[in-house]
C-alpha cells in the first residue's frame, strides 16, 4: 500500500483494539462474556444493534483482532441467498485456516439489509446456520424492529449499542485534530457534534470536510459548509402542523417534510381528527375532506394516474386544516395523539377475515352457493346454532370438517363447550372408523379438498383427520 496515498479519516482513526473503541462498555463486556462461554450459551448467536456510526462493526473487528479470531464476514454487498450462506457455514466449519488462526467467528453484518427479493431464503438459511454452526455468530443491525429480525428474536441474544455521548465524541475529535495538526475552534467542534446526533463516523467525516487541507477549523467555514440536517417531522409533529395551519400552503407543505407517506398520513388522520376537533360540524367537514382524499387515492389505483395524488394531499392537509370553522380554537389545542388503531388491528382483522373466508369456502362447496352468499346469509345463521346448541354445533363442525379456529370464530363465548364436544365426538368417530372402515364424511371432505386443489401438497396437513387448511 502506497504511503503517499491519503485515506479518509474515518478509516485512519478506526479502532484496532478494544480499548480504542469508545464508550459502549456495557456492550463490550456482554459480548466478551458471551464469547468466552461459547458454545455453552443459551443463545448461539448475538445481535448487536444501534444507530449508524456507534461502532458495531468496529467493535466486532476489534474483538476478533484482540482475541485472535479469524473473522468470516458477510454483508449487504454480498449475495446472501441460501447457497451463499451455506458456503459461509462451510468455511467456518473447516478445521484449518490459511492464516494460522485456530478460532473462527462469523460476522453477518447489516442483517436488516437482507433483500426480500434478491436474497430469498436467506433468513431461513441463517436460522439453520445458527442452529448448526460450530463458530460463534455475531450479527449487526440498525433497527431492532426490522421485520427481518422477527424470526431471530428467539435465536439470538440482542445487545444494544448506544449513541455516543457528546463528551466521548469531543475527545475523539480533539484527538484527531491534534494528530492532523489542525487548530480547532471549540465552537466549531460543538457545532459538528450537535449536528451529528451521536454518529461518530458522520462527525469525523464532517471534521475532515472542514479541516483537511486547511490549517484551522473555523466556525464560519463550518457553518457555511455544514448546514443543519433537515429532519423529517415525526407523525406527531406532522399532525400538529397540519391541524394548526391557517393557510392552505402551510398545511400542504407538511407532507414534504413528514416521515409519513400519504397512506400512513391517512390513517393517522383518521385516528386523530376526532381527538383534535370536538365540534361536530368541524368533525364532519374534516372527515368529508378525508373521505374525498381517500376517494382520489382509490381513483389512482383505478386509473393508474398518479397526478391525482396531489388532490388527495390537498384535501388531507389543507382540507383538514381549514375544516375547523366553528371552533377554531380546537386547532391549537395540545393533544396527545394516538397511534392508528387500525394498523394494530390489521393483522388480527386479516386473520379473522381469512377464517371467515375459509368457512365460507367450505359452505359454498357443500351448498353450491357463492362465498359471498355463504358469508352474508349462511354464516350468521350458523352462528346462531353455535351460540344456542353446543352439541349440535359440534356435530355440524365435524360434519363440515371445521377446524378449531373456525369453531372459535363461530362460537364466540361458547367455544370451550363446543370444543369439548367436538374433541369427544372426534375420538368416537375415529374409533368407530377403526372398527368399521367405510367411506363417509372423509370422502366427502376429500372431494372438497380436491375441488379446491388442496390435495397436491396436503401431506403434512393430513395429520388431522378432518384437517382443513387454507388455499395457497
Amino acid at each position: 500500500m502506497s504511503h503517499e496515498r491519503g485515506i479518509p479519516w474515518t478509516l485512519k482513526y478506526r479502532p484496532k483494539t478494544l480499548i480504542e473503541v469508545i464508550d459502549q462498555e456495557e456492550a463490550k463486556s456482554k459480548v466478551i462474556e458471551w464469547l468466552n462461554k461459547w458454545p455453552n450459551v443459551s443463545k448461539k448467536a448475538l445481535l448487536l444493534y444501534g444507530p449508524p456510526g456507534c461502532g458495531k462493526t468496529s467493535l466486532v473487528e476489534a474483538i476478533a483482532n484482540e482475541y485472535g479470531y479469524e473473522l468470516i464476514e458477510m454483508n449487504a454487498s454480498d449475495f446472501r441467498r441460501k447457497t451463499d450462506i451455506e458456503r459461509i457455514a462451510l468455511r467456518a466449519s473447516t478445521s484449518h485456516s490459511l492464516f494460522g488462526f485456530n478460532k473462527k467467528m462469523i460476522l453477518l453484518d447489516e442483517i436488516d439489509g437482507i433483500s426480500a427479493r434478491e436474497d430469498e431464503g436467506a433468513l431461513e438459511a441463517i436460522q439453520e446456520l445458527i442452529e448448526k454452526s460450530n463458530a460463534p455468530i455475531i450479527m449487526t443491525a440498525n433497527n431492532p424492529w426490522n421485520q427481518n429480525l422477527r424470526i431471530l428474536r428467539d435465536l439470538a441474544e440482542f445487545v444494544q449499542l448506544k449513541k455516543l455521548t457528546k463528551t466521548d465524541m469531543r475527545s475523539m475529535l480533539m484527538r484527531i485534530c491534534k494528530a492532523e495538526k489542525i487548530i480547532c475552534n471549540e465552537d466549531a467542534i460543538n457545532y459538528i457534534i450537535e449536528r451529528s446526533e451521536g454518529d461518530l463516523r458522520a462527525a469525523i467525516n464532517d471534521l475532515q470536510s472542514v479541516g483537511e487541507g486547511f490549517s484551522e477549523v473555523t466556525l464560519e467555514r463550518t457553518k457555511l459548509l455544514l448546514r443543519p440536517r433537515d429532519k423529517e417531522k415525526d407523525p406527531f409533529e406532522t399532525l400538529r402542523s397540519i391541524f394548526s395551519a391557517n393557510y392552505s400552503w402551510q398545511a400542504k407543505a407538511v407532507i414534504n417534510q413528514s416521515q409519513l407517506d400519504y397512506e400512513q398520513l391517512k390513517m393517522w388522520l383518521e385516528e386523530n381528527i376526532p381527538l383534535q376537533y370536538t365540534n361536530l360540524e368541524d368533525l364532519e367537514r374534516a372527515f368529508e375532506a378525508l373521505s374525498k382524499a381517500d376517494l382520489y387515492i382509490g381513483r389512482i389505483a383505478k386509473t393508474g394516474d398518479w397526478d391525482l395524488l396531489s388532490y388527495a394531499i390537498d384535501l388531507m392537509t389543507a382540507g383538514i386544516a381549514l375544516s375547523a370553522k366553528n371552533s377554531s380554537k380546537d386547532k391549537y389545542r395540545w393533544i396527545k395523539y394516538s397511534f392508528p388503531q387500525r394498523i394494530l388491528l390489521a393483522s388480527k382483522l386479516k386473520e379473522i377475515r381469512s377464517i371467515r373466508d375459509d368457512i365460507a369456502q367450505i359452505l359454498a362447496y357443500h351448498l353450491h352457493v357463492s362465498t359471498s352468499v355463504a358469508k352474508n346469509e349462511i354464516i350468521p345463521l350458523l352462528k346462531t346454532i353455535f351460540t344456542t346448541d353446543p352439541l349440535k354445533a359440534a356435530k355440524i363442525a365435524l360434519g363440515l370438517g371445521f377446524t378449531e379456529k373456525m369453531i372459535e370464530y363461530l362460537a364466540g363465548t361458547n367455544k370451550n363447550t363446543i370444543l369439548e364436544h367436538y374433541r369427544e365426538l372426534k375420538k368416537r368417530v375415529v374409533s368407530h372408523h377403526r372398527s368399521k372402515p367405510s367411506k363417509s364424511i372423509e370422502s366427502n371432505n376429500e372431494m372438497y379438498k380436491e375441488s379446491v386443489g388442496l390435495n397436491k401438497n396436503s401431506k403434512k396437513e393430513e395429520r388431522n383427520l378432518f384437517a382443513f387448511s387454507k388455499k395457497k
Partner: protein
Amino acid sequence: MSEKFIELLWAEKYRPRSLKDIVNQEEIVKRLLKFVEEKNMPHLLFAGPPGTGKTTAALALAYDLYGNEWRRYVLELNASDERGITVIRNKVKEFARSKLPGDTPFKIVILDEADNMTADAQQALRRIMEMYVETTRFILIANYPSKIIDPIQSRCASFRFTPLKKEDVIGRLHWICRQENIKCLDDGLEVIYEISGGDMRKAINILQSTAALGEVSVGNVYKVIGLAHPREIREILNLALLGKFIEARDKLRDLMVVYGLSGVDVVKQMHREIFSADIKIPEEIRVILAEYIGEIHFRIIEGADDEIQLTALLARIALLGRKVS
C-alpha cells in the same frame, strides 16, 4: 352409522338428488328429462329468483345423466368467486381435456351467478362456450337474465324458474321437520316463509337454526333472526345519532374485528337497519341517511378505503343527529 356423531346442513341433506325428486317447476323438469333421455342437450340458461331450485335442477340433471359418479363430469364454477375470465378459461380448458363419460357425449360446466360477469367477460365466455362445444355443455345460472348478453342468450335454451308457491315451501319445511323429528307450529313456518321471501334454501337454513333453539315457533324464529343480525349495527347508529362519535367508531371497529366484516358488509347492514321498523327516526332523516349511505357505498365502489369511508359516514350521522334533536 356416524349419523350419531355428525350432522350436515339440511339445505345439503335434503337437496333433491334426481330430477324426479323435484316437486316444483314441473314444466322445466319435463323438458330437462327429455335431455336425459336423449343423452343430448344444448347449452342451457337457468334464470330466476334465488332459491327457486336453479342450481338444484342443474345438479339433478347431472346426476340423472351420469349417476353416482356425476361429480367427475361436472365442473362447478361461481362467477362471483372466480377471479376473472382467464381463470375460468383455464379451468374449463383443463376440464374439457379430461376423459369423457362412457355413454354421454359431453361433460357439463355449471356456471353460477353468470350475470355477475361484465359484458366483456361474457363475450369471452361465449367464445369459450363455442370452442369446447363438442365435448362440453354449459349451464349458466343467473338471477337477472337481462344482464346476460344477447349473443349468449341466443345460443342457449332458456329456462325461466318462477318463485315457489307458499304451500310448496311450507310443505317442504313440514316434511323436513317430520324427518328430523322437530316440533313445529304452523305460524312459525309461515313466518319463515315470509322472511325467506320464497327462497327455499334460505327457508331451510332458518328452519335448521330455529330448531337448534327447540320448537319452531314464531318467537324462536324471530329470536334466530335477531341473533343472526347483530344488534351492534343498530347500537352504532344510535350512538352516532346521539353525537357520541368516538364511542360509535370504537364499537364499529370491535364489530369488524369480531366478525371479520368488510366495509361493504357493514354499509349494507346499516342500510337495512335504517329502514327497519326498530329504529326510531323521522322519515326525512331516513331519506337523508339513505342518500348518505348510497354516496359512501359509491365511493367504496370507486376504490376508496372502506374504513375511512365508514368513519366519515359516522361523522355525518353524528352531525345529522344533532340537527334533529
